């Protein structure tokens, strides 16, 4: 067993856990931060992605003892007070979250991207999220939601094509 204090979303979590447990297990089971999900236990689906010192990490592959003292961010820390983060706003409004199970992981990876790129293009978003699987949306809405959030952050009034809200105009 290991006893440690983890810093998650700037809060301190004193935890005791079996030393071999992954960060995913400790976040969910000891910290009770269940927003972070598990989908494959193999680092293949990305549902468990969190940020460690600002970098995306698959928490199912991350031994917890290696992140003691580091800054961990999860989906629960995204909001600003009761206000949603721009990514959360655009994901909710554009239907980029359907079942919502992959969403926390994707939001964290997208957040790390936006911290580096203020105006990411489709290719950069695809590259950044290539480790995440979503079985509901078909991905295109997620890419548009990330671009929309980036625009909102820049104060740009760009918004996804109307076809994503109402369907493409039927050719006559």
């Amino acid at each position: 067993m290991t006893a440690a204090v983890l810093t998650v979303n700037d809060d301190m979590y004193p935890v005791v856990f079996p030393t071999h447990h992954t960060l995913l297990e400790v976040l969910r089971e000891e910290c009770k931060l269940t927003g972070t999900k598990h989908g494959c236990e193999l680092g293949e689906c990305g549902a468990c992605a969190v940020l460690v010192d600002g970098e995306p990490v698959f928490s199912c592959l991350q031994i917890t003892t290696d992140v003691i003292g580091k800054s961990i961010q999860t989906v629960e820390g995204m909001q600003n007070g009761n206000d949603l983060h721009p990514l959360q706003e655009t994901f909710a409004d554009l239907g980029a979250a359907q079942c919502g199970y992959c969403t926390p992981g994707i939001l964290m990876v997208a957040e790390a991207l936006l911290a580096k790129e203020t105006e990411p293009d489709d290719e950069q978003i695809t590259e950044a999220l290539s480790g995440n699987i979503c079985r509901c949306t078909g991905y295109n809405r997620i890419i548009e939601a990330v671009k929309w959030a980036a625009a909102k952050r820049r104060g740009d009034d760009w918004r996804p094509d109307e076809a994503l809200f109402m369907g493409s105009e039927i050719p006559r």
Partner: protein
Amino acid sequence: MVKAFNVPQADETAEEDLKIIGKPFRRVDGRAKVTGQTRFADDVHFPRTAYVKLVRSTVPHARIRNIDFSGALAMHGVLGTLTGDELPEPFGIMPVSEDEHALAIDTVRFVGDPLAAIVAVSEDIAHAAALAVKVEYELLPTISNFDDALATPEPQIHDYADDGNIHKKVSLKFGDVEQGFDDADLILEDNFFYEGSNHLALEQHSCLALTEDDDRVTVYSSTQCPHYVHRALAKTLDIPGSRIRVIACSNGGAFGGKSDPFNHEIVVAKLALKLGRPVKITLTREEVFYCHRGRHPVQMHLKTGFRKDGTMTSQHLRTTLDGGAFGSYGVASTYYTGALQTTTYKLPNYWFEGARAFTNKPPCGPKRGHGTPQPRFGYEIQLDKAAHVLGIDPAELRLRNLVEPNTITSNWLRIGTIGLKECIDAVVKGSGWKKRYGKLPEGRGLGLACSAYMTGAGLPIYWNHMPQSGVQIQLDRSGNVAVFCGETEIGQGSDSVLAAVVAEVLGIDLKDIRLCVGDTDLTPVDLGSYSSRVTLMVGLAAKQAAERARDKIARAVGEHMELPQEALVFADGQVFPAHDPDKGIAFNEAVVIAESRFGTLGTTGSYIPPRAPGRFRGAGVGPSPTYSYSASVIEVEVDSGTGLYDVQKIWMAHDIGRAINPVLALGQIEGSIYMGLGEAVMEEQAFRRLPKRLSPSLVHKMPSMLEYKSPGFHDMPEIVSYMIETNDERGPYGAKEAGQGPLLPIMPALANALFDAVGVRVDQVPIHPEMVLKALHEKQNGREARVGPHKFPDIDYGEPLIVRTPEQGGDGRATDDPKSKRKGLRSASGTMKERDDALKEKSSATLTTD
């Protein structure tokens, strides 16, 4: 007193009056989804929870000789074990195939079949203890696929099968099939194969049970169908349903994979009752592949007769389904491989033969499209082939055959609105089909395919006359409206449909609605989130309940305002006279007036589908209140040196009736395209036999997400989605389904596009580049430029049931039902046990035929 004078009446359905329906709005659970607050089953936590691990068979088919728990029980922290003899009652989703036990008794039937459970204070200990359980097996012959099952009638995997290891045989003949072929100018016969696949919902199944009071158990589960789980628990635990509460948590994706009652749900409930503390299990991804219930691998032989003008004279479809080790939904799946062939194009004569085998693999069941994508794949490719032979444009050939709206098909399905022509027109124009099809440079091509799907199954899984969906509304004087419904949010947006319909009728904001869903203690029964039934059935039940609430309020407010209630409009959180909107009162004030007048306010609504016209055995599978339609064009580029191909763009038009919320509806369409593309290009649940010298096992080739490939961000092409609104009066505000239909055209459209690009046929999915390459080599060597099955198993499907078509003046009944004379008798309540008991007693009074 109500004054008798004419006032303009509010038209509730007028397009311009709708405030919510048809407009894009944030899903009502949107905030919870993006903040991590949505509570999935594994997120439910209670103090003192104990954890379960199932001991699963390591061999594909064997008798259990002995289970030695000594090593497990010696471990500190192990609380107990459970074996099948403590849960002797069988269960299964279909009353005609209740062939599962929570834990295998005597026999294991596939690698992964659970035979015992360990419960411990932690998951780690339960896991270690499960590994320490020693099982002795007496191995039995292994059946690996349909052809194996046909060749190996003994030993039977289940003794109730129709014939040896053939679980179910169906033969339905509508019209004069032979005459139809005689009338044809062209007859095409093709073999196709469609590989099985898993749903791969990102959330693994999870379940937690805890006891309350003396003898009540509450079960939180990731299920699409809490009502069916409720029934299965009452049966297997042998306690009254009134003491069992099933709460369906939001599902982290399901796609059909969470619509059966499962072993693990029964096991944790039993252990909670034994231990008196919360008990939980969350399956690993590997175990999800063993639960399976995914797409059946299907072989098809399709024979269709065409006239020179492209119209069809007759069709004979034969299918085989590799069912895996249990019944699951398989009887329905078998019928579904034939039932919907008639819904898109006129087929005056149609013969369907289907058979499902038991095999020593995880059970197959319903996956998005349930049994219909496989024959649709073959059908749409064969139409493409016919178009080439006849020299007719493939889009034109389809348009010449379209089913008419408001007609009955040759197999007795009642068609409602049909927007397939508009769908074809949209994708043809959108893709520039007429200028580009057949004219793109070598290596590039376009392919077209269409489909139809049910908007809810016409019949419930078990025979009853009760509503398939119920909604209860409670109105509070604060203006809050609480809506209770057994529906289950699996990501598709059912909560948003429910809330939107109620808010629209009552003219209030979505935020003033509280939902309580998927809770068998608190909510009226809804059968579950399957068969694309929720928008239509829940929507209509909600509409009825809300309209009754509105009428009650209107009556009280009308009396209060001295106006007829029909003169009142409910909109923008106000109740006001249509002719004088300024004279309105706030909705909560209106509720106060109504509550003062009538007392505590509550209403219900329910929905039962219309009775289907078919009266023959098997007519229960296929009917739906109405059908959705889709057409798709896919553009592909092929590298003929490697066979690698790139899907560049997909045009999809979907007849949705009416989009309740366009953003969510489009999400369903795009998600269907994505999932269809996964099946077309890469997804396969395949198995292999280990070398005999190592092991007799038939094992899953890829029970992990490392090996089971599904499309990622890099794999998605550009998508153009058109929504065709046919405004079907059978759906709420005209709505039809969107969650399954648009998956179906993808696989055949891709195959057809590959043909346009490089002139080769791949008559099976998934289509791997090496198949394209092989077909190209065949073509270069002057052989048939095709990859796909060359033969179809020789099966005796039995005597067909002959049903005269509506065109022949039939009445929907079979002219002769040979099967009812010898087999398939069942009790009125439909369970196998009762059927068996009744047969034993030979009490004809309790026997009916379906």
